[in-house]
């Protein structure tokens, strides 16, 4: 059995807990983090909007003015993903593989779940105050388009009633 666990900032511990307790032993677990292109893309765009401040060589490391902050953020995003995956693998305490993907977040998750037998993801919103969005745009897309069964977990423990 192949299981993909989508690790996102803020809500990933609930997914890991669900995978640890709910996925049968012996299943192949893949922890997936997607470093999205939108956020560095916004920085690329803002920098390109500063007409005239660019220096030759579009992709050199950060060294003050003239270097695109989006480049630095792409590197930071990969490092963030690796850190999160390390923490997630520790919490899982089961054999697993980890993977950082790059691209449009929702599409990468759907692509990674292709052929899997289960995709585990968390709602975005907080249980503390129910609002209209317990699924952000990316999670909604994934739930809509994933071609495998989806386990959708709440990020917080259920409140006592």
């Amino acid at each position, binding site marked *: 059995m192949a299981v993909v666990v989508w690790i996102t900032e803020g809500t990933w511990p609930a997914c890991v807990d669900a995978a640890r307790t709910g996925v049968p032993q012996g299943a192949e677990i893949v922890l997936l983090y997607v470093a999205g292109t939108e956020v560095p893309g916004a920085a690329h765009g803002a920098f*390109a909007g500063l*007409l005239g401040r660019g220096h030759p060589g579009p992709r050199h490391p950060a060294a003050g003015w003239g270097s695109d902050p989006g480049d630095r953020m792409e590197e*930071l995003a990969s490092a963030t993903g690796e850190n999160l995956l390390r923490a997630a693998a520790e919490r899982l305490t089961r054999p697993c593989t980890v993977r950082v993907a790059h691209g449009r977040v929702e599409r990468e998750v759907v692509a990674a779940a292709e052929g899997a037998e289960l995709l585990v993801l968390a709602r975005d919103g907080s249980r503390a105050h129910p609002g209209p969005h*317990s699924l952000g745009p990316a999670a909604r897309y994934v739930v809509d388009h994933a071609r495998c069964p989806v386990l959708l977990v709440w990020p917080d423990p259920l409140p006592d009633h």
Partner: protein
Amino acid sequence: MSRRDRVLSTSFAEALSVGLLVLVLVCAVARPFGWPEAVVAVPAAAVVVGTGAISLDHAAEEVARLGPVIGFLAAVLVLAQLCDDEGLFHACGAWMARTSAGRPGRLLVQVFAAASVITAVLSLDATVVLLTPVVFATAARLGARPKPHVYACTHLSNTASLLLPVSNLTNLLALAASGLSFTRFAALMALPWVVAIAVEYAVFRRFFAADLDAGATAAATGEEPEMPLFALLTVAGTLAGFVLTSVIGIDPAWAALAGALVLGVRALARRRTTPRAVLRSVSVPFLAFVLALGVVVRAVVDNGLADALGDLVPSGHGLAALLGIAALAAVLANVINNLPATLVLLPLTAPAGPGAVLAVLLGVNIGPNLTYAGSLATLLWRRIVHAHDSAVGLKEFTLLGLLTVPASLLLAVLALWGSLHAIGV
């Protein structure tokens, strides 16, 4: 020369200058072969002068007008870079991490505060280039989702650049054209600045509710970085210098230069920077680009654009006229980027008085949030896709722009109208 020849040569000059402006802008956005923008802009300026599309007098006048403005901005760029070298932005990130206590909603408030102040005082360049990566890293350190906070930086680098003449190159150009003093400019723009930021905040809070509610996994560390007190005091002193120079009637650029010198000499003496690094933060190709762009735009304006656009620019300084001017400026800023839009619109609006000039600024400074970077959106999008081999989703960013820009523009114009009545020009 017969009348017929003159007509032909005029239409030739018109076509030539418009064609060159388009070429300069397209190359500035697409950056073929990674060339600096000046590589195309400077020869283009030489061509419009050489062919007589713009008279030598007008070209010299334009350079003389732009020179001090660019010097002013260069001093502020150096100041911001030296503040970064002193660790100001790093300290800012640590402060945000600590005071937000790991709660993304509170972090957004801190990001709004930091980005608004830094943009206003050290120019939007500082926010885009220096603060945005720090904010991203801070969100990552807290285990919070970076998107609301990074998008806030990119939006505020535009919206929060309304307050001071130094906040944006467009403001410096407008200050020179409006005849306002530094302090009166700031007084008139204070209310529109606050209103525009408040609208952004309200929209962001709702738009990113799911991401902000998702929380953060890492507890805030108690790390207390050393505040770069000397840099902070220099910046405060420079701000006081802007007010003082304005009161005694000398160019506030001298205050910026003094601030940059104080930090620069100290950093050089302590070997924290090199003369080469300081020169790089001035960015000479940038100065050449702005001068050359100014000459090309002046050629376009001289060759009939003023007449063509003259009817389009609302006249007067009533509320309706201000709204019309701001809307036109916002549209133009999205079509051709805010810098050339400002250069085109200033000569057309300056005769109507400072109110009209400030309305142009509201449009060119808030407007760019509508498209990805307020500049030739499609071309830009292609440039990014080409450079980074990945599909960039424009939908969410554009939707956010549609939710913020019209509302903040409308309310900021109302605020400006109120300020103009309350304070006067």
